[in-house]
């Protein structure tokens, strides 16, 4: 179950139905922040990719969704955290088509294209944190 707190909404990601929950919560929150139309689908799609990576590669983790404001711009931030195996070569993982799971290899680079800001930190044996933001056009 997603947990709502002062710090936004936390969705525990432990199986594939949590992926659906995470992207639905992300869409709902983004709508509240003021996003419309295709932006909602874009944010939900990026969340879906990052959540799926947690299930596939780390088995469990969490996704935190929060509204953000900076320099009087509003937006949403998505933070995906896991303490799975980590990514040995982040630069390669960010390339279109690179996959260790024999899938399309578009999740990370695609999510980066969909969102306005994208950061990834990962350490082998420690885990992975992906932080993505999307800003409302003023």
């Amino acid at each position: 179950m997603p947990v709502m707190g002062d710090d936004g909404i936390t969705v525990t990601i432990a199986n594939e139905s949590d992926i659906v929950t995470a992207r639905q919560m992300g869409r709902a929150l983004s709508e509240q922040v003021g996003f419309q139309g295709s932006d909602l689908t874009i944010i939900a799609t990026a969340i879906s990719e990052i959540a799926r990576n947690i299930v596939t590669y780390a088995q469990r983790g969490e996704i935190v969704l929060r509204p953000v404001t900076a320099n009087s711009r509003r937006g949403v931030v998505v933070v995906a955290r896991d303490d799975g195996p980590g990514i040995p070569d982040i630069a390669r993982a960010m390339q279109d088509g690179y996959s260790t799971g024999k899938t399309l290899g578009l999740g990370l680079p695609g999510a980066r294209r969909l969102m306005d800001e994208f950061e990834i930190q990962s350490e082998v044996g420690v885990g992975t944190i992906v932080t993505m933001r999307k800003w409302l056009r003023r």
Partner: protein
Amino acid sequence: MGIPILKLGHVLIASIQDALTDNDLIQLRDDLSSQVGWSRATGVIIDVSALDVMDSFATRTLRGIADITKLRGAKTVIVGIQPDVAFAMIQLGLDLDGVTTGLDLDEGLAAIGRGDRGDAGHG
């Protein structure tokens, strides 16, 4: 929850009702591939108009379905991709090249009737 598959003449129609989990999609792939075999269907239409997103997993699975049904002699048409979903798919880097697409069920049936090739949405 499985996705119901209807049979209309020689065409199997699967209408996705809601946001799908990965298992639902895999289930659909397995159901369709077995049903195409024994029903001797010549066409499969998957209506995705209720899908909230098409991420890389969903796209890959749908493509997989098109490939499998083709091996069994049936042509798959994917219909109902919404404008917002199409837009997000393209930005993500996804495509359905080689799979016939259509606006809705009517278009899907027409495409199967015409025997459209898979490399263009139409014609």
